[in-house]
C-alpha cells in the first residue's frame, strides 16, 4: 500500500518538475494532468471515492479552461537564462542566482518547521479518530445518510458548505466581472 503510493507520488513529482520546465505551455498543461490524475489514483487507493470523483471532474474542467486560455493567447514559454551575453562577454545573471538563493533558503526554513509538524502527526495508517469519533457512532441513524462524507459535509458541518457555496458564487461573479467584454471608460 505504502509502496504503491510512494511510486505514484514520485511519478507525480516528476510530472510536476517537467511541467514547470517544459518549453511549450501546452505540454506543460498536459503534464499537469499527470499530477492531477495521479492524485485521483491516490484518492482511490486511500478509500476516498467521493474525492476521486470530484477530483476527476475538477481536473478535467481546469485542464479545459487552461488549454482554452493558452490556445487563445500564446504557447511561447519565457526562459530565464543563467548567463547574459553582453559585448561578447557572458555575465552571470544576478536575478537568476538570487532566485535560487531565496528558493533554497525558503525550502530550508520550511523543512525545519515541517520537521516539528511531522513529529506531532500519527504515523501513516495509525490515525486516531479523536475528532470524528462521535460522527462514526451509528451515522445512518443520526444523519440518515449512508455515506458518512455526505453526512459530515451537509449535516455536521453544514455551515462550512454554506461558506463554500458563498465562495463559489463570489468567484463566478468575479470571473464574470473580470471577463466582461466592454469595460467602463
Amino acid at each position, binding site marked *: 500500500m*505504502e509502496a504503491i503510493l*510512494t511510486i505514484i*507520488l*514520485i511519478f507525480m*513529482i516528476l510530472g*510536476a518538475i517537467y*511541467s*514547470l520546465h517544459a518549453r511549450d*505551455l501546452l505540454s*506543460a498543461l498536459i503534464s*499537469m494532468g499527470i*499530477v492531477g490524475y495521479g*492524485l485521483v489514483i491516490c484518492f482511490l487507493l*486511500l*478509500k*476516498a*471515492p467521493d*474525492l476521486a470523483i*470530484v*477530483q476527476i471532474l*475538477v481536473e478535467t*474542467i*481546469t485542464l479545459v*479552461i*487552461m488549454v482554452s*486560455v*493558452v490556445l487563445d*493567447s*500564446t504557447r511561447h*514559454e*519565457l526562459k*530565464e537564462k543563467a548567463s547574459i551575453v553582453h559585448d561578447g562577454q557572458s555575465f552571470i545573471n544576478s536575478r537568476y542566482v538570487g*532566485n535560487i538563493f*531565496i*528558493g533554497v533558503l*525558503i*525550502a530550508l526554513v*520550511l523543512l525545519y518547521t*515541517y520537521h516539528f509538524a*511531522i513529529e506531532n502527526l500519527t504515523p*501513516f*495508517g*495509525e*490515525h486516531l479518530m479523536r*475528532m*470524528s469519533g462521535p460522527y*462514526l457512532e451509528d451515522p445512518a441513524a443520526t444523519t440518515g445518510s449512508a*455515506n*458518512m*462524507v455526505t*453526512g*459530515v459535509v451537509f449535516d455536521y458541518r453544514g455551515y*462550512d458548505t454554506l461558506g*463554500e457555496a458563498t465562495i*463559489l458564487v463570489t*468567484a*463566478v461573479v*468575479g*470571473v464574470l466581472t473580470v*471577463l466582461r467584454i466592454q469595460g467602463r471608460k
Partner: protein
Amino acid sequence: MILYLLCFLLFLIGLYGVITRRNVIKIVIGLVFMEFSVFLLLVLVGYVEGGEAPILDETIVSGPFVDPLPQAMVLTAIVIGLASNAMLLAIAIRLYKKYGTFDIRKINELKG
C-alpha cells in the same frame, strides 16, 4: 513518514514554480501543485490501515472506516480551489489582452 515527506516535496516544487517562473500560466500551475499536495497530505493523515471507505452497506455496517472528516474538508477545498483557479485564469486572460504578454516582469514594467 516518507509519504508525508514526498507530499512536502510536491509542495516545495509548486513553491519553486511560483517563485522562479516568469510566465503567469506557469505560476498558476505552481499554485495548483501546492493545492494538490495539501489535499493529498490531509487525506493521507486520515487513512486507517485496513479501513473501508466510509460508506455504509448491507455487508459493511461497522468495520473500521477511514476518517470521513478530512475527506469532507478536502471535498470543500477542491471545489474552492477550482473557483480560485478560474479567477486566476480570468485575470491572466485580462492581463494578456491588456499587455500582449504573459511575462510577469514586463507586465510589472508596463504599469499604468
